[in-house]
């Protein structure tokens, strides 16, 4: 993912630290936006679009870093998050990583560590972004299916034969074949295997925790 099209958000309550981090990240060529508190960040960027990551201080006054992270997750717009903290303990680290943090760094943070973490987070963000685009596409195609076609599709991707589906739905096998051809056409799948993969994606949307492993 190129640095130019992605944004790094920095949230830290300490002005000088915020300014320094912003500068450091900008010196690596990223576009940076900084905020003094969690609420300030949530205001205009409730759903950040495009490729982005968040550099977040844990010890924020008011809504703290961990709470902000869960807020973002709850809003179903997870942003890859790098936590930085002056005094991290194990419990805090575990909680942050479980909630999908990509990295947990301690202050003072070295430029190499931070920039590598940012790079990782942005790659993850871009993967998630393309995934989301694909999912949106599949959902759009599925919306074109009639209820009957959807029924046929669901049974077929479970591995049933045409005649088993015909028997289950109480309709003729030829009709099933016609439905199947229309589903393939509407879902724009070149093969039945690709159709199965589409449906699989829709059924198990990426959870934030899994995304890090892929």
């Amino acid at each position, binding site marked *: 993912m190129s640095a130019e099209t992605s944004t790094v958000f920095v949230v830290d*309550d300490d002005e*000088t630290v915020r*300014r*320094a*981090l912003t*500068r450091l990240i900008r*010196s690596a060529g990223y576009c940076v936006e900084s905020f003094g508190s969690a609420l300030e960040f949530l205001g205009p960027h409730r759903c950040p679009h495009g490729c982005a990551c968040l550099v977040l201080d844990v*010890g924020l006054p008011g809504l703290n870093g961990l709470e902000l992270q869960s807020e973002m997750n709850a809003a179903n717009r997870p942003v890859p998050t790098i936590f930085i903290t*002056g005094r991290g303990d194990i419990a805090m680290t575990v909680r942050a990583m479980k909630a999908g943090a990509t990295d947990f760094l301690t202050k003072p943070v070295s430029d190499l560590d931070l920039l590598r973490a940012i790079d990782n987070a942005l790659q993850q963000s871009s993967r998630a972004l393309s995934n989301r685009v694909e999912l949106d596409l599949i959902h759009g195609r599925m919306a074109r299916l009639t209820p009957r076609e959807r029924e046929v599709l669901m049974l077929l991707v479970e591995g049933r034969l045409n005649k088993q589906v015909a028997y289950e739905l109480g309709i003729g096998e030829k009709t099933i074949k016609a439905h199947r051809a229309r589903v393939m056409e509407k879902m724009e799948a070149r093969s039945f295997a690709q159709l199965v993969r589409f449906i699989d994606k829709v059924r198990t949307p990426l959870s934030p925790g899994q995304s890090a492993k892929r």
Partner: protein
Amino acid sequence: MSAVAVNDVRNLEFCIQAADSNNLQLISKETLLRGHGVMTIFYVVVAALFVLLLVFLQFRRMRASISVESSAADFELSRHTFNNYAFAVNEAAVTEDRTMETSQQDRGADLRQGAGIWPPRLSSRQSIHLRLVKLSWGRFRQASLENELRPCRVRAHTEPPDDSSAAAQRLQPDEQCCRMLDLLPLAVLVTNSRRKIVFANAAAEKLFGYSRQELAAMFADMLLPPLRLNAHVAGSTCFDLTPLGGNSHGDRDLVARRKDGTEFPAEVTMNPVSPEGEPCNLTSVIDRTERYELLQNRRQLVHLTRVSTLGELAGSLAHELNQPLTAILSNAQAAQRFLATQPLDLAEVREILHDLVEDNNRASEVIRKIRALVKKVEAEAVPLSIASVIRDVALLVHSDAIVRGIRVFATVAPELPPVHGDKVQLQQVLLNLLLNAFDASESCSALDHEVTIEATFDGVDTIRVGVRDSGVGLAADTVDKIFLPFFTSKRDGLGLGLSISRSIVEMHRGRIWAENNKDRGATFYFTLPTGASAESHCSRREP
């Protein structure tokens, strides 16, 4: 005519020579009387006059043969006596003749020294014999007059012809009085106007380690060195009794010296007494070692609780230091990266350098504040603004408050006059109250944890500082006890924080108390006097 008349009167001492150096004859009185009648009468008259002169001289010598006080270690001679007589001393106990020879110019000095060196040991019951030698018309001729030295043994006290000597005698406390002073448990020294010790009681002997005879040969300044210093500063032999900021007969804490050279803190009280109009001082010396140690311990306790309070804050303080360090590192690394890129953005680098300096200052400020609290210094009272005390403490607890999820508000009334006190100790009080408030708020499950510091006027010349929490408040039966030492409601508390806070506030002539709020939580207040009313008091006191 050449003749030499020899006077053979009793105590013949001086040969008067009518000298013709070439022809020296010895003529008896009988021969002279048998001569010419008129000449005989003339010679008789001359001889009678001569005898009268000798008697007169002898009389003068006797008068001048002075006294030596039997109990005092010094002796006093009038200037006339000193100028005209050499004197030799025979001390019966030592059986040693000491002859003092002085030259014209340094006589005065030797006389004073003599007071110090002679006799080395002398008990009060000893009698002293003094032999005087008449000087030959103002000059010393000790060696040639050796054979003519006429012992004139004078018992002490037999003849006090000299004024200063009389004064010295009158200064001797009478025996009954001495016995009474001996019974006193505290050391008493009686000194004369020259600060010389004329009497020391038994307790003084014990306290200073000198025997009574030794003490009687000393000046009070040798036991109480600062006195001498002050006397010197004052430029007079009369000692200035007024202690700094105290009354004229007041006590003062000094360092006294024992015989073995060790020093100890002493409380010295001096009272001028005037028996029969003669000025002398009654000086009592109390060994204050124990009280001094107690004070030291108390000071250490205050310091220890302060350090332990800071220990609780260690994590937060590390964070306060970590923030500027983070900014410095990131700024410096950003600068390195900017410098490697083309075109060079000088404005950016300049800004970075500016920030570096600021962050560095910020870090040093944190360290300075911590060190000020940890440092072991004597409390000193200076005028200081309560707002700055609040600001400094708020900085120290800033990140602790964030971690605990507590919001801290401080409101200081405008134009508060300065209070007079020790900054570190007042910070300690406020820090203690704030951390207590944090603990109280944290133990409460309510969502909005708030602690408010408020500084306002409380009357005309008093400032009141309140620390208000939103915790559970105080139980009714503990309100009276919280300021007692070792009383604590915390599981791991020492119970010293509030007790020490109270002693600090009271030392500043203030008051500290606690109240439950109307809604919830409690408020701790303390007051401090402002302006000149506070100055006189706390400047000399220790917690």
